[in-house]
Every structure is written in structure tokens, then in C-alpha cells.
């Protein structure tokens, strides 16, 4: 699979992932609901992985490529 995520996309996802993992696993008091924080954490981990390798599986399915928009 080829990369389909642009640099800006990756940075944004990295930021969102860190926030989600923090509220999901590190400070569970922030969301006073176990189920919700677990979901947030799991989404955060998946998003982080996809941001790190620069490939989003959903992008591949839908044919979106944020690399192009940056004139790469």
C-alpha cells in the first residue's frame, strides 16, 4: 500500500490521537464514564498508528489522498 496521507493530515491526526489516548487511558476522571473513555482511547490508538505509517485504510477504500492536495 502506498502512502495516502499528507504532512498536515499526519500532524493533525497525531494531535487528536494524543488527546484521545490521554482522556481514554491516562486521566479517566476527565470523562466520568468508563465505556466512553475506553472508546476514545481505542480510537486514539488506531488513529495514532495510521498517522505514524501515513496510511489510512478508509482513505484507500474511498480513494481519498491528502498527499495530492499539497502538490507532492
Amino acid at each position, binding site marked *: 500500500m502506498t502512502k495516502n496521507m499528507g504532512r498536515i493530515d499526519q500532524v493533525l491526526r497525531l494531535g487528536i490521537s494524543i488527546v484521545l489516548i490521554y482522556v481514554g487511558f491516562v486521566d479517566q476522571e476527565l470523562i466520568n464514564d468508563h465505556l466512553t473513555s475506553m472508546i476514545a482511547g481505542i480510537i486514539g490508538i488506531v488513529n495514532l498508528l495510521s498517522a505514524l505509517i501515513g496510511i489510512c485504510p*478508509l482513505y484507500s*477504500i*474511498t480513494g481519498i489522498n491528502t498527499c495530492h492536495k499539497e502538490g507532492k
Partner: protein
Amino acid sequence: MRLRFQILFSVLGITFLAQAVFGLLAYRELTESRGDQLTIFLQYLTREIAERLTLPGNPDKAERHLEELRKKFSTAQSVLLIQKDDRIVYIAGAEGLNRADILPGLKSAYSDSDKHGMIDLEGIQFYWAVSQLPNNEYELIMLEPAGDNEDRITSALRMRLVSSGFVILWMAVWVSLILSSKISRQLDEKNDQLEHLALHDNLTGLPNRRLLTDRLEQLLRQSQRSKEPFALLLIDLDRFKEINDTLGHPFGDEILKRVSSRLLKSIREEDSIARLGGDEFAVLLPQTDLQGSELCVNRIMHSMNAPFRINDVSTESKASIGIALYPEHGESADVLMQYADVAMYQAKKAQSGYAVYDNSQNTYSVRRLQLMNDLRDAVEKNEIHVHYQPMIDNATQQVTGVETLARWQHPVLGNITPDEFITMAEQTGQIRLLTMQVLEQALKDCSAWEKLGYHLGVSINLSTYCLQDLSLPEEINSIIQRYDVDVADVELEITEGALMHDLSRAGKILDQLGNMGLQLAIDDFGTGFSSLNYLKNLPVATLKIDKSFILDMCDSESDNAIVKTIIELGHNLGCRVVAEGIENQRTLDSLKLLNVDTMQGFFYSKPLPADRLFAWLIEHDKQVSVSEEISSA
């Protein structure tokens, strides 16, 4: 893109609606079930208390335990009390409440059947629940301010709704994206299919003329930049029309498919091939000069050598290929196509398999191409005119019949000789339609003369190509029926060459025509190469001596001898002998001496249109009667 947004918004709308309904249901469920929850909690507590009470131990410890459970399950403002006979035995919480008012207030609210509900104590709404201890003496009662609970519920609900809202929204966005990309992909596929259909030939799957023209223009631009040559080949199958007519269209289609696969195997990967229509194909050879294109042509011709075997019928169809080269011959798509076409006709004419476009033959061939196109129109619009040349009986000098001759007056190029346009009609397959048109016109005129008192036979020339068509007798018969002409008055002239082509098939058709009662004549007799065998086997009634012998018979002894021999041969076989091409009195006199049966030529009349022929007939009758009077006097 519009579709994508439509899907996105509709999915988002459904999501928000679902989220709202979900929230409402969850809220009602949470509030309504609070009483049940309290009851369940109390039932649990009663079990706990029953166990504690039966066990010896520290009552303080038991109380602390109850207090812990209360706070854990409910809020600090909740009240837990145990009563016996309307007396409070134990109470926890209830700060700010008048303890004495609690029991009477409760008594009015609950009956025996209810286990939980809501009451108003000192202006505050409370959930209440009751449970009896197993010994039935003590009752456990729990009160919880509804306001506290509502805060708890709304905060829990808000959190759940917000987080589930985000997840659902996120999923909805992706679902809509996936959905729209799937739809757009399907649309793209459909579009591709349609485009493919528009640019390809249905039968063979090869590109069609439109795509070829497009590719040719692209290649032209490329080659102009890179200064590289390329070649355009036009391929036409020989005898394809014949195959189609005799073996049927499905057979012809199958041959076209086989030809296209053979062609595909003979070209390189970068070459492109197209079917232009009918039996015409084109090949585009990029970066190819004369030598390269000749190599390719040889491969193609080699591949076409093997016969096509379809349903146990084996047939051969060679190809004629015309080559036009860029930039030598032309630098535009139209010119190259035209020149390749010219070269192809040259190849067809010379039967050489292939021909490279030759500039020196250009004027002739371009004219020819134009004529071919115009001929098609002329035949379809019935613009070919019919002229008649009278045939005169030697003994009586009466006109016995007329030979029908086709004439084409081209609007721009003037009079086109029959030699030229008949060959073209044969090559383009128009000959059959043309023959039938001429026959129809001749029979129409013949029946008109009959009504005017002139009984004349009609001779029609039949092309070699017509003699390959098994449906010919049927068609001729239907035309004769239509004009109510005596079959014996119709004579079909064929050349010896026609018989050489495929005697078994032609013989069958001629036999059929003979059986119908039609007269058969051998035209241009003496110039062919065939044996005299067919004279014996075929129902031939007339021999027409070729005019080349007649023209010189007075000056050349050998021609004279030939004419004499043919007349004798014809008479011995019981045939009528016609001499055509009589141009002067001397020739006429010698032929009279040789006892020829019928005479025809410019000396009597050139071929005339129907109206002028009629005038000529009246004039001729007058002359004949005058000469008869003179001779009788």
C-alpha cells in the same frame, strides 16, 4: 462531487435524528427505572440486614456498613430508615427534614401493593422504595431526592450522548464517503463501458474508425515532435462480399472475427488496429518506415494464407493492403487515410496483395475513389441510365431485339465509360443492385414498346459476380413477372470469363435460368480461354462474336477466318450467331455473305435512350419498307 455531498448530508441528518431519539429514550428509561433500581437495592439491603441481624456482632459495625452502602448507591441527601409498627428504629441521612413528618407522609403515599413511587415531603420531590425484612416485622424504606438523581442522570446522559454522538458522526461520515465512492466507481465503470462501446466495434471488439482517427491524430502530433516516421495500413478482404452473400452473414461475421484475431497476432504491441466497417481494417504502425511496414504486411499476408475453417466449411479470403507513410506521403490524417485507400485499391486491382501509395497514380486514383463514392449514391438513387442498341436480323433487316447498356453521366466528371464503372461496381459489390435496376428498366421499356406495337427481345449483360449468387434466378423471375414480359424475350449475356471463375456454381445458376426459359448468350465469344465444353453442357442459345474480330475482318484474313469459323460452329451447334461492332457497309456485306444471323453496331445505330430508340425504330421501319418496295419493283 454533488452526489457525495448529498449522501453526506442525508447520512448526517439520519444520524442526528437517531441520536435525538436515542437520547430521549435513554433519559426516560433512566428516570423511570430509578424506583426499580431503589427497590432492587433495598431487596439487597434486606438480605444483608437479615444476615447481620441473625449474626452476633457489633451493631455499630452493622450501621456503618449500611451507611456505606447507602452513600455508595445513592447521594448523601438520601434517607434510609427502618420502621416497625410506625416507629422509626433506624434512620440515616434526612438532614434538614423533620423526622416526625416522614412516616405519616409516606403512609399517605404508599399502599401495600406498591413497592416504589414518588412523594412530596416539605416541598421536595423524593423517590421512595420499600422492602420488608424476612421476619415481616421490620420495613426498610429508602428516600432519594429526585433533583439529585436528575442531575446525576443528565450529567451521565450528556457525557454518553456527546461521546456516542462523536463516534456515530465519525462513522456516518465514513459510511457516506464509502457509499459515495462506491457509487461513483460504479458510475465510472458504466461510463467506461459506454465509452468503450462508442469507440469499439461490436463484432470484433477492435477500435472503430472514430478511435482510429483519434489515435492517428495523436500519433501525428507525436511524430511531428519526435520527427519519426509511421505507417498506416488499410486492409480489405478479397471476395468477402461473395462469402457473405453465398454462405450467409453469420459465416461472414465469424470470418471477420477470425481475421481480427489473426491481425492482432501479426502486429507488435505498440501498433494499433481498427475495424473501419464492413471488411475494412486499418493498422497504425508507430515508428515504422517502409521496410518495417513491409515486414508487417508480409506477416499479415502470411497469417491470411491459411483457409478459414468454420462449421466444416473451409474458405479462403486473401487481403489487399494499402500502405501510406508519414511524412513521405502526407502530413495530415485525412490525406494519409485517403492515400492508404488509394494504395489499397491499387493492390486490389493489381492483385499484388499489397501496394505502397504511389504518387504518380494519384490523380487517377483520387478520381477513382471519388467515382466509387459517387457510384454508390448513383446506384442507390437510381441515376444510372439505360441505353439500347438495336440488333437487326440479317435476312429480314427487321429489328429483333436490343442490347441493354448502362450509362452513367457524372454531374462533374461527365460521361463515365461502362468499362470503368462496371469494374468499380463489381469491386464495391454494387453490381447486383445495378444489374437488377438495369433489368427492371429494360423490361419496363420492353413492355411499353410491346404496347406500341414493337415486339423486341431484350439482352442484358450479367456480371461474373452475379453468377455466384444463388438467389439470382429467383430475383430475375420476380422482375419478369412484374412486367409481364415473355421469358423467351429476355436474353442474358455472359462472358467466357464468368464461366471460368467457378463453373460448377455458375453452371448451376445458368441451368436454372435456362430451365426458366431465359435465353443465354455468350458475349465476346472468341476472346476467352475456356474450352468449348461448356457450349455442349450449358443451355446456350446465342454466340456473340467479339467486336475485335469484326472490326478488322475486311482487312485481316485471319480475323475473317475466325468469324467464318465461329459462325459455322454456332450454326452447327444450333446457336444463333450475332456479330457486333459493325461500323461500315463493307463489314456488313461480308457478314451477310457469311450468313450471320443477327447484326449490331454503330453502322445501324449507337446505343440510344428509350425515347430516341423509338424514333429510330419508326425511321428504320420506313427505310426497310422503302428498300423492300425497291427490290420488289
